[in-house]
């Protein structure tokens, strides 16, 4: 049994930490203020990251590599792509969550493509920067209820509908769109389609102004008679009750630990900075078994640190299970639920502990407290995660435990 980070990942963690420290942090406040400005510094960095991944002997890391490693790297205990990606993203988000989300070719759409694309599609779209479009104006967590339609027309599908909250929706080269082949058939008829930038009928309507992660663009996209080749449908084109939607949802088992890792990164940033500030203010942060004889502030800091460690280890567990080909749906949701909420709690409490210093823009603490909120919402809200966990624990279907 070992719950420490394997030495072989030290280089990637170190590299990601350098990027976070040297590339993201210096421009973090700038792009928080200049919402919707394109962070051009990232283009150079993205090429470096591509190079690193392509050169990596064990398949690399990142959104486009998830779910591809499980079970194909030999026998025995594996620490692979899932864990590596979690670790990398954690470090990057220690730097800046919004910028990490804006790294070209690391979109959620890339994970979806990696998870369900066939070989041909992987050839065509593997190197594309793909955003993910699921949410609609009237549909959030209830993703089976989407109204965007895809109608077969010869060798094409015609997509009609409106998507919102598409991360990197304007900057990405393609959008993976969830649409239904038949609104009367529920989740079984939902398929995902790759729509490349510039396809007639697809328009970015607006970019949202947000509480946090302002460096990341969040687009509303309209599809009006948008025609895509039938080969752009990811996975099985048949409407099947058993597969289909479940396949699409499986993407989340691999991406949720990554988003949990993001929450851990930003929370660690806040905690470390708060520890520094309080230490400078003269507080003794020594760990003790009797926690009630320290100051309230120190006890709270230690408790936040314990919560962060719990979230981190639950996340590594979920990634470790994925790397070893074990079903991890429950554990992935546990990691996301825990990390999402404690990430938010920690960043907010750190602002509180640093008082007006924490609240002012002179520190990044207030920004981190704004950025962290989205991590308990997207990729499945806290409540959706609790629902998934409860259904698994209690053996309930979605019609029994609604």
């Amino acid at each position: 049994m070992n719950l420490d980070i394997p030495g072989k990942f030290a280089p990637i963690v170190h590299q990601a930490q350098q990027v976070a420290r040297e590339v993201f942090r210096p421009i973090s406040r700038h792009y928080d203020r200049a919402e919707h400005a394109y962070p051009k510094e990232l283009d150079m960095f993205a090429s470096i990251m591509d190079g690193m991944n392509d050169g990596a002997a064990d398949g690399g890391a990142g959104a486009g590599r998830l779910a591809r490693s499980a079970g194909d790297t030999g026998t025995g205990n594996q620490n692979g792509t899932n864990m590596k990606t979690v670790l990398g993203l954690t470090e990057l988000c220690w730097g800046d969550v919004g910028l990490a989300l804006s790294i070209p070719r690391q979109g959620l759409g890339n994970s979806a493509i990696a998870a369900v694309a066939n070989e041909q599609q992987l050839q065509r779209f593997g190197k594309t920067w793909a955003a993910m479009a699921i949410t609609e104006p009237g549909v959030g967590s209830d993703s089976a209820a989407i109204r965007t339609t895809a109608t077969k027309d010869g060798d094409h599908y015609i997509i009609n509908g409106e998507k919102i909250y598409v991360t990197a929706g304007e900057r990405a080269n393609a959008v993976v769109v969830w649409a239904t082949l038949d609104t009367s058939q529920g989740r079984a008829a939902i398929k995902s389609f790759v729509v490349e930038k510039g396809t007639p009928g697809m328009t970015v309507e607006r970019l949202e102004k947000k509480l946090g992660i302002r460096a990341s663009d969040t687009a509303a996209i309209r599809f009006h008679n948008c025609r895509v080749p039938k080969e752009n449908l990811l996975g099985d084109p048949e409407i099947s009750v058993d597969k289909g939607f479940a396949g699409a949802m499986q993407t989340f088992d691999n991406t949720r630990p990554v988003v949990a890792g993001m929450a851990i990164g930003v929370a660690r940033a806040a905690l470390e900075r708060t520890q520094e500030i309080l230490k400078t203010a003269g507080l003794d942060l020594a760990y003790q078994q009797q926690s009630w004889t320290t100051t309230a502030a120190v006890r709270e800091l230690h408790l936040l640190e314990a919560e962060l460690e719990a979230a981190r280890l639950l996340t590594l567990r979920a990634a470790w299970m994925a790397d070893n080909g074990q079903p991890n749906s429950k554990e992935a949701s546990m990691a996301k639920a825990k990390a999402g909420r404690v990430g938010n709690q920690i960043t907010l409490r750190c602002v509180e502990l640093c008082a007006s210093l924490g609240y002012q823009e002179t520190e990044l603490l207030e920004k981190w407290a704004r950025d962290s909120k989205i991590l308990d919402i997207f990729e499945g809200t806290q409540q959706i995660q609790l629902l998934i966990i409860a259904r698994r624990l209690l053996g309930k279907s979605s019609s029994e435990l609604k």
Partner: protein
Amino acid sequence: MTRDPIGLALSIMNRISGNPLLDRLGLRSPLERTAYQGTRTGFRTIALAGREFKRVRNWLPRKRLPPGAPGDLFDLSLDDDQQMIVDSLKRLARDVLRPAAQEADEQGRLPEAVKHEAAALGLPMYAVPSEFGGVAEQQSPVTSVLIAEQLAWGDMALAIRLLVPFSVAQAISCWGNGEQQSRYLPAFCEDTPPVASLAIDEPTPLFDPMQPSTTATETDQGYRINGEKSFVIAGAECELLLVSAALNGTPRVFIIETAGLNLAIADTPGMGLRAAEATSVRFDNLDVPADALLGDDDFCFQAFIDRAALMRCGLAIGTAQAVLDYVIPYCNDRQAFGEPISHRQSVAFMISNMAIETDSMRMLTWRAASRAETGRSFHRESCLARLLCNEKSMEIGTNGVQLLGGHGFVKEHPVERWYRDLRSTATHHGGVHA
């Protein structure tokens, strides 16, 4: 607050109803008498008749078990030995401890049958190096934590009561010098290991184990110990006591052989853990020989306390898991408004959170234990694990009762007992050692 006439009258009535004269005159119903006896407190001087531990002439050199080799990869799987121990203790917990727990709680005693069944496992052997008759080949805090987890799933009080000799053996293996190991460890590998206990806690608010108020002062022959220790498991039967005391202001541990001693001992049953047979022991100018001081130059009291914390976390995880495993079928069976209550998010989400926090406790504790096992620093990790267990295990205990509603409050279900037991996670430091 000053006493008004009504208060005074109530106080007098209370004292009369507590007067032993009522018993002599046969004025008290038998039932009331039982209740009275059960809550009797106060120190009695008890002459302890334990075994003698012979001083060994040709004692073996000090043995320190080597740390395990740290695997480089992140790995949550148990090795074959760990899995085997977990499996056999899981059976013991399910088939022996759990069925005996309620009566043991009411009687406030370890039942003979349980003692007998558990003895067959020879748990202390796992703490003793082979040179002294045991089977331990390397440091094994992870195994200790797993053992605590499994046993506490059956019942935390019985787990502690059964783990006390194991813990003392661990402490002597970990810290004892060659002479101490040679004198005491072989006894833990006999068919009937000594009743032994760790006396760390003291009855003071905000008790900090690093600053015991019990003192040891140097004398010509050794040390003189003064002070009072609480949560001393089975104090009245104890043959060997490990007692923490400040020596010149520094906390140390002393090995006390109780045979032939007259010790002031009080039964101190608590809110829970009643089957653990907790007592308080008072030392009034107790003289112990110079070789009673546990350990050599490598003794570290902080690490001693940290290892105790690991074990306490293991206990908390086991009982928290018991609560979770119990509420799931209960909430699936229990009907309200025409369907199982588990169909309600307000109920279901509490269960999800119990599972999240139980695993959170487990991950932190396992990490601290695995670092300890492989000779890496684990003070920070054990403190964080303990803090999380303090907070979350009680939350799980109280939510367990809440989910059962009225059923949670009555003894027909074990959840009220787990609630009482889980309160101890944050209140105690002694008794166990990983």
